């Protein structure tokens, strides 16, 4: 189903992958575990023979979630809750929900209470990563997840089994990285929307099949530099809806680097193979890029963005702010000042799941880049 997709089909499926997941599940007789972002070790879920699916919101109307989470809750959290409460809940056999902030903590409680008959486990990610205890705790949590899935399924996984899943997921990430690297130098070869659709869909469908599509797409890419592109760095957590990427394409912006959980932070999560797989997953967790809720040092975020900007010779940084993401909102004023002091052109785009006004975003984005080209920034 996902092994021979064209770029166009990938973009189409990314809009709403769930009908195809339903069909696949029926055909294969597999079970599905949904996870909100970030950092659930999906390789573990896969090793138990489930399809791990990242939940990254929906563009369908809000109906039930507002009765559980008020309008000042992170719009991604509300959107994910809506996705399962109103639309796709029955598709999932269980959920593994990471807790990284107040909202995600409550979300997993609300979720569990709403789905009393489904398997619901939380992944208590450490909210500090600089001390030895964080490593200890990450390992405990990964082992607890393995034990929880094992109790639920009455099955055990072996190191070899987990390493096989890791290998499969690594291959996916390597393919995505190769496509990303190609796109950096050949902005006209594929659009931003296409590139990020490939990443997003990778987080939601069977990798064994989808890797075949990725390989075919990668092999079919033809160098196309194009003209008039402006290289940018994209910062933030997620960037939705996909039409935001289309806006970038429209004004010929070329994303050459990013810090998104649905972007490079995912692709960079290649795990060391053939050793102790749990230790390798812990290493991955500890070495991941900055993520506002679990890293306490915004300087690190600043340094990462600055390095990406300089190394890629980008012309500006665009920060995607998810409306009501408290964590981003505490970091943003200082981050903005740090980047401005460094002379890095910086633009914040306020996005909101389900209710975003694209025309407003377009106008602001166009104004920013017109000023940039005129040297006014």
């Amino acid at each position, binding site marked *: 189903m996902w092994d021979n997709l064209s770029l166009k089909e990938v973009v189409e499926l990314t809009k709403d992958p769930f009908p195809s997941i339903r069909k696949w599940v029926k055909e294969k007789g597999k079970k599905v575990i949904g996870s909100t972002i970030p950092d659930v070790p999906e390789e573990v879920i896969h090793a138990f023979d489930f399809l791990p699916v990242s939940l990254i919101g929906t563009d369908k109307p809000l109906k039930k979630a507002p009765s559980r989470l008020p309008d000042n809750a992170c719009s991604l959290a509300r959107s994910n809750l809506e996705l399962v409460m109103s639309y796709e809940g029955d598709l999932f056999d269980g959920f593994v929900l990471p807790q990284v902030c107040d909202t995600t*903590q*409550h979300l997993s409680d609300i979720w569990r209470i709403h789905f009393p008959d489904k398997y619901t486990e939380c992944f208590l990610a450490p909210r500090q990563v600089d001390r030895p*205890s964080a490593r200890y705790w990450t390992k405990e949590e990964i082992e607890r997840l393995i034990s929880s899935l094992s109790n639920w399924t009455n099955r055990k996984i072996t190191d070899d089994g987990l390493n096989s899943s890791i290998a499969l997921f690594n291959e996916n990430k390597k393919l995505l990285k190769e496509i990303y690297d190609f796109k950096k130098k050949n902005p006209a070869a594929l659009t931003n929307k296409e590139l990020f659709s490939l990443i997003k869909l990778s987080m939601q469908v069977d990798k064994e099949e989808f890797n075949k599509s990725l390989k075919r797409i990668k092999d079919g890419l033809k160098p196309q530099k194009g003209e008039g592109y402006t290289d940018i760095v994209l910062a933030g957590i997620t960037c939705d809806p996909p039409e935001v990427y289309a806006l970038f394409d429209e004004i010929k912006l070329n994303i050459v680097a990013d810090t998104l959980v649905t972007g490079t932070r995912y692709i960079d999560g290649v795990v060391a193979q053939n050793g102790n797989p749990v230790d390798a997953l812990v290493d991955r967790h500890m070495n991941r890029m900055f993520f506002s809720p679990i890293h306490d040092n915004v300087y690190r975020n600043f340094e990462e963005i600055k390095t990406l900007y300089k190394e890629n010779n980008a012309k500006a940084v665009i920060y995607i702010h998810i409306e009501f993401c408290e964590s981003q909102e*505490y970091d943003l004023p200082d981050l903005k000042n740090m980047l401005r002091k460094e002379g890095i052109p910086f633009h914040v785009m306020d996005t909101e799941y389900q209710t975003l006004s694209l025309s407003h975003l377009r106008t602001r984005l166009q104004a920013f880049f017109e000023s940039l080209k005129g040297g006014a920034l």
Partner: protein
Amino acid sequence: MSDTQKTEKPKKELTKSQMLSKKITEDYMNEAFRAHELGKLIGYTTAISPVEIFVAHDIIPIYPENHAVANLTAKKGAQLCSVTESLGYTSHLCAYARSDLGYRETGITVTRGIPEPDLFLACNAQCFTLTKWFQVLARRGNLPVFVFDTPEYIMDKKAREEIIKYCVIQLKELISFLEEVTKKKFDYDRLNEVMKYSAESSRLYKKFLDMAQYKPSPISIFDALIGMAIAVYRRGTPECVEYYRTLCEEFQEKADKGIGVLPKDKEKYRLYWENLPVWFKFSDHAKLLGSYGGVILTSLYVHAWSFEFDLDKDPLVTLAENYVSRFSNSTLEDRAEMAMDLFKRYSLNGMIMFMNRSCKAVSFAVPTLKDVLVKRTGIPALVFESDMGDQRFYSETQIRTRIEAYFETLDRLQAKVA
């Protein structure tokens, strides 16, 4: 005689506990402002944090939240929060944080302010927002922050054991961190002594809150909110124990004499309050509810400092067990159990559920918690949305109307039962 003098109300004589509270607070702040002179450091910390470690290591704990409460109660919220918003912070962040950042920009405060920090201890058992707020402050002075990470105290027994282990490891890391910052060895004997005071004052604080069991209740949540201040900032000290002993004696005397917040025949509705208070409406709410025969007796929030330290255990273990299991870090199911315990023990017959825009950590649980409590108690709930400190999000007419309508409902139900 001038007009002002004519209208001036006679000053109410302070009770023994009030005088004690005043003295403890003044001594504490005087010492804090002279900390460096005394060779001590100022550690900003969150109201729910293992402050016993600070006290044992002679670090003076300062709670920016308490200072924020003073300003918000005095209706400075909108003014201070607006200043912070002009710096690029959004209007839906915590009003404590926004008013504090506003204070730091303008110096506006109704108190003498608070001393500048040397280091930070942020415990996320209370909320995640405090961690982020402290990080903002720490960046300004390039100061160290220690995040005491308390994963949600989920209901799985084995997971709980692991969570406690993780927290104990972190408390050891905290001690090493403090030793490094202060260049002074941590004294575990001193910690044991501090724990004794903390355990005793917590026991007495709980006894004080439990005065709400009497009918009529001699204590309302407003007494509890005033009374909890010393538990927040002076636990681990002998004066804290003395304060709660005095407070308990005073309220026990009231209870023994049958003196209630409302007279026995007027106390119709014994109410549960969910969330922090609307600080700037503190006394207005008490008066309004009183006029309907309602008195708010308690909330999970005031019980957050009713620690039950076990002195037979390793102090780090009992600290970890207590701090990680606060209501704000418990599952929704456990929160409901904790609230149900209060409903039963205090014979509550009404509930006000406040959706506090400022406090996501408490408020996001409210819709589900309300459903659970209504179902389990059969008591209707009043839900209203506002902000604990920013008056711009408070609609007087709307909230007053809802309160009136709620009491009409309760009256109707009571008449039906009768």
